């Protein structure tokens, strides 16, 4: 029962997630704002539409959205979730998790290059540039978790993590912050990127998908929403026990997700979009934080260097 709810929740929450963000922004701006499910309506509309594709494009452009979406879904299967657990779990599965997202990125990027548009090439180059900072930082996070728990698969790590206490709270908070930075980067939100500016020159992710239309665009949008949720659930996993199948973890989980979306909305409305040249420093904050966390763990776990 709970599992079914969870699955349904996960399928629909991406729309809600974006909706909440927009609503929060609207509220901060003093507007009424679009309905919470607006993204869902757009999605439906897009699915109904036909599509226009560029003459320059090739097969890559056609398969990219599919690969993108399915790798994100696949990543979901690896991540342990309340009242579902992790469908696929083996030693080192988090490597597969990261690389599945890598595959998604790979195809998004070459699809952007496929159109031969200078804007999309620009977006692609920025995307990969920033992920060169995010990726190692994420592995530091994972590595530190493995160090902390002495385990090498998501499920076991998360289980032990929820059980652990004491200084681990500090570690968890550090990780929470760095994961939020990761979410802002990968989900291309302010201050890294502004999804709904009207100047292509300043975009990253949005500019990469300029040429998609119809169901493909729908897949892309849904995919990016899903990615946000995915990373947010990883954040949530830090704080809730996933191995116990009961209502509370599930509720807390949902709560965290909604809170995060609201938080992102607040950030977007409070902070201005950073200059491109300053973005790397911001993302590098993630690396710094996770390194601090690593140091902390080494210090406490191994009793001082």
């Amino acid at each position, binding site marked *: 029962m709970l599992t079914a709810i969870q699955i349904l929740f996960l399928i629909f929450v991406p729309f809600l997630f974006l909706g909440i963000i927009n609503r929060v922004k609207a509220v901060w701006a003093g507007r009424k704002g679009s309905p919470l499910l607006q993204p869902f309506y757009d999605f439906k509309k897009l699915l109904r539409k036909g599509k226009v594709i*560029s003459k320059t494009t090739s097969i890559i452009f056609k398969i990219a959205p599919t690969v993108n979406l399915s790798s994100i879904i696949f990543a979901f299967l690896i991540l342990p979730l309340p009242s579902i657990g992790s469908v696929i779990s083996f030693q080192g599965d988090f490597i597969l998790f990261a690389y599945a997202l890598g595959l998604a990125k790979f195809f998004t990027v070459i699809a952007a290059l496929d159109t031969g548009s200078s804007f999309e090439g620009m977006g692609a180059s920025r995307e990969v540039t920033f992920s060169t900072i995010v990726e190692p930082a994420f592995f530091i996070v994972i590595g530190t978790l493995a160090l902390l728990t002495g385990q090498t698969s998501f499920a076991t790590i998360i289980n032990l993590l929820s059980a652990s206490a004491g200084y681990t709270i500090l570690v968890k908070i550090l990780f929470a912050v760095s994961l939020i930075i990761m979410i802002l980067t990968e989900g291309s939100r302010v201050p890294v990127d502004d999804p709904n500016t009207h100047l292509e020159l300043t975009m990253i992710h949005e500019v990469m998908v300029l040429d998609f239309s119809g169901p493909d665009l729908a897949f892309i949008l849904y995919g990016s929403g899903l990615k946000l949720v995915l990373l947010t659930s990883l954040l949530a996993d830090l704080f809730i026990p996933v191995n116990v199948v009961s209502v509370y973890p599930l509720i807390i989980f949902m709560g965290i997700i909604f809170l995060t979306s609201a938080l992102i909305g607040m950030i977007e409305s409070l902070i201005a979009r950073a200059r491109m040249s300053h973005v790397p420093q911001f993302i590098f904050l993630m690396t710094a934080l996770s390194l601090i966390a690593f140091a902390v763990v080494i210090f406490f776990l191994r009793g001082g260097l």
Partner: protein
Amino acid sequence: MNYFFSGVLLFFLAGVVTIFVRKDEWKSIIFLIAASGAQILILPTLFSSLIFGNSFSAAAIFSEPIGAATLRLDPLASVFALIISAGALLAAIYSLGYMKHYYGGKYSLSAFYFFFGLLISSMLLVVVVQNSILFLIVWELMSVSSFFLVVFENDKEDVRKAGLYYLIAMQIGASFLIAAFSWLGNLSGSYDFASFKNILSAQNYTAIILFSLFFIGFGTKAGFVPFHTWLPRAHPAAPTGVSAIMSGVMIKTGIYGILRIILLSGVPEVHLAYAVFIISFVTGIVGILNAISQKDIKKFLAYSSIENIGIIGMGIGLGMLGAAYNIPLIEILGYLGAILHSVNHFIFKSMLFYGAGIVYQNTNTRNIEKLGGLIKFMPVTSILFLTGAIAISGLPMFNGFISEFAIYLGMAKGFASANVSLNIFMLIGFSGLALIGIMAMVGFTKLFGIAFLGSPREPFDKTPHEGSTALILPMIVLSVFIFVVGIFPITIIQILNPVLRQFNNINIEQQFSSVFSLYTSLTGAFILFALIIFIVFLIRVYFLRNKKVEQFKTWDCGYQAVSSRLQYTGSSYSLPFLELVAEFVPQKTVVETQYEIFPAEAHLKTSQHDFAERLFVQPVLKFIRRFLTMFAWIQSGRMQQYILYGLIFLVIILIWIFGAM
């Protein structure tokens, strides 16, 4: 074993025969036939050694200095012999198509095939010979023959330069080996590898120095930083078939050597293990950084070979660490990752080189800034190239992931150990490998996206077309292997079991079974992944059914005068990233423009330098040259001066004697 040797001989003879054949295409055909025949002779032996873990050995009696030489084909040797002979066959097929446009030309194909055969046979001997002098002889033969292949297009000045640079680099590498082997020969009183065991396994300074000598010697061949500088020069210079052999196969003999020495030296010394690990890590970073900054496809691939050697080395270092700290699982995973990645790198790197060769043949340029939109002209080649690119970026369902996964997991296992320094180095490696991986993705999205996608940045002088069957076939075969290894890794891991047993015979079995089950579950995951992709694709098809799909030009944001010159170029694509790491990729920018009211055309030239070369190699060369030119005045042509040298010399010695008295 005899079959093996007759195969080796066959390669050599094929090369010799081509000297006496008049018509050029017959040379290619004869060599191809010989190569395939050699497979029939060689492969059964290799597989019987790999599957049943047998090791064959033979003895050859030479006269005095060499003495009796043992030749042993154990599983480790078999793995590399497998790469070599398979690579030779594929290269032979490829050359059948690729050398066509040299037929009747100014270059001698006989020389090409002769040295090709010599190279293959000497490489095959390198992995089996177990006698120092004989080993060095075949090792040098390998370098020399490959040198002649590098300078195949020898009327080009830069090709000759590259060749000479390569030859000298090999000489320097070999001299380290000569020193190490001769020293060992003194210590053990024999030239047989088996007799080196107890000297190398003794954990004293001698053993450490010896190992370092060996590592530098073999590392020069493999292309570890800072001994990598010959690689980006030599590999692009050679004809593509050979570049594939060199980059995919030959540098692996260096890896083989290092592994062989590790086998001989038993439990490695901890600091050595760390050193290997860190050097490899640096190698990986330097390699991929330079790769990203390249415009020349083949140079790019050469640098990416350096990167992959780095990854292999990290695997080796990991294995050594596992052995040193006595953590069998890490040891197994490390060596497994290293050997597996050697095989994988052979697969996708040869493939990429073959693709690059087809592009070069069709467009007469290796500069990706001039290319674009090739996927329209040569779809099959492009898709195969894409396969290789994804594989080398180590993405799941392709073989690159399999080996990197082993190394990742090994390092993750390192976190469980209570040793702080191990933990820290593991974290460096863990995030470092991730960094290398993502940078590889940057590089190969650039390479593929710019060269094959979009629209041509400059008009081709003749419209490119699909490569001929002989050119495509090797790539198809390799792509099959990519997916077999990528999705059903247990097949090859099963084969590698005997090799790993050589490294750690005692408690391999349960570790190995755990690794085995791990990879089985990985296969499961991949199948699920494929399933998901399939379903999502069905959904897409469902939504796209009877919808009208318009073709229109790319969205230009309202700017009407779009030309293909406006596309993002490779350098502009990699610029933001290179700016982040500007310290490590020093870039020289030359702007030629005239500042007038109506400025005419302007030019901007950018060129990157290999900072590792600047840091480690060039100063040494500069110093040696300056030091030697200090003595240039000696041969002045004045006779009195000459006599004076003699007298001064005489006087000095006399003073020395009287001092001694």
